[in-house]
């Protein structure tokens, strides 16, 4: 097995046993905080939940890092904790954010429509429109089931390979493929009207 790129850092954390965000654990936190927050944000769909899920992720990491034995890649383990924390948080917070996302949905449709009516297919979008479009894509992700949302984020946002996804989610490659295929179908349904609106007359 290849040496884990985080091995030294993790071992430093395990040997130091700090009582807070300092020393080796501070280094680990700095190395992962943006990746963890990004995954949490894309799965939960909002900054507030992403912050809560990230906090929970590092709390779990801090408590369990002493028991980590490099049976999987450390980064996969971190992603797994972040994905589970995000899905759990999303389940707890329920429909609250679905409503708020759908509310912004209408607004973006209306404001961007006028600018993009006569854009040609794949024409470069203005910065403001790209920002709006990113919101639409995030909304589409948010409409997927938690499992499909997680696999979509790992595949396209974190650019993980099938093997890495399998290790992170602790599922087989076959399950990765079939779950991703269902996610594609769902995304196709969710994104087609958006793409038609932005890129076609």
């Amino acid at each position, binding site marked *: 097995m290849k040496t884990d790129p985080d091995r030294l850092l993790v071992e430093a954390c395990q040997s130091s046993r700090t*009582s*807070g*965000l300092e020393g080796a654990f501070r280094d680990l*936190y700095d190395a992962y*905080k*943006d990746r*963890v*927050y*990004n995954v949490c*944000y*894309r799965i939960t769909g909002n*900054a507030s939940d*992403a*912050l*809560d899920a*990230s*906090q*929970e992720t*590092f*709390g779990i990491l*801090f*408590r369990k890092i002493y028991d980590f034995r490099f049976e999987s890649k450390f980064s996969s383990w971190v992603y797994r904790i972040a994905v589970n924390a995000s899905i759990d948080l999303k389940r707890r917070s329920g429909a609250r954010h679905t409503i708020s996302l759908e509310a912004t949905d209408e607004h973006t449709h209306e404001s961007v429509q006028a600018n993009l009516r006569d854009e040609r*297919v*794949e024409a470069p979008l203005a910065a403001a429109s*790209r920002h709006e*479009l*990113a919101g639409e*894509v*995030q909304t589409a*992700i948010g409409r997927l089931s938690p499992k499909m949302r997680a696999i*979509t984020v790992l595949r*396209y*946002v974190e*650019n993980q390979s099938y093997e890495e996804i399998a290790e992170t989610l602790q599922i087989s490659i076959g399950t990765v493929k079939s779950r*991703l*295929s269902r996610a*594609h*179908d769902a*995304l*196709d349904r969710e*994104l*087609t009207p958006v*793409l038609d609106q932005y*890129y076609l007359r």
Partner: protein
Amino acid sequence: MNSPCPSDHDRFWQSAAELDPLLQAHLAECVTCHARQQRAQLAVRLLRALPAQRAPLALDGAVVAALHAGTRQERAIQQVSALTRQEVPAELNSRVEDALVWTAEQPAPAELEVRLRAELAAPSEAMSRRFLGRLDRLRAPQDLDQRLTVPARSSSRRRAFAFVGALLLVMGLGSLALQRWGAELSSSQQQPRVAVQWNIEVIESAEGLDPVSRALIGGLSGGASEVLGKEKL
């Protein structure tokens, strides 16, 4: 067209380099599949282009707080688990045994079997008996006591005399009427009819009655008039 449209649309999500030559040839000819593949590729590009979110500064504070809370909790758990285990005093055993005597399983009383038999033999009867036993016994109101105790003996005695007096009066009137009616009947056969005259006599004792009426009342009252008649009504 070289080949039919692929049923597996998931292949459109693969990068152009990953597509097999057959599918590439089909896409070059089929407008529908080409549009689908273009849309999937656009979606992939949009997903990959989602701006990376940087952790906000607030996360540092949140994590520091979470770690301190976790450390405090861990320390508390360590301290609790480090507490020395106390030996159980011998007295506890006997106390527990005493306490258990009360909670020991109680055998069903023999009467239960008897009742059950009765119940099964005549269910409706048993049910009535059960419910009757449960009916509340009502207490007489105090008012009733007062009403009953005040007149007591004297009034009951007076009422008995008044009853017998009234009876004697009725009987006397009845016998007088019969006597007169008999006399009128015998005389009316020879003489012209005359108007009947009623004489009402109020008597105070049985002795005031004529012998016929006295004998009649005596027979009807079973001799009571003879006894009571000696007293002044």
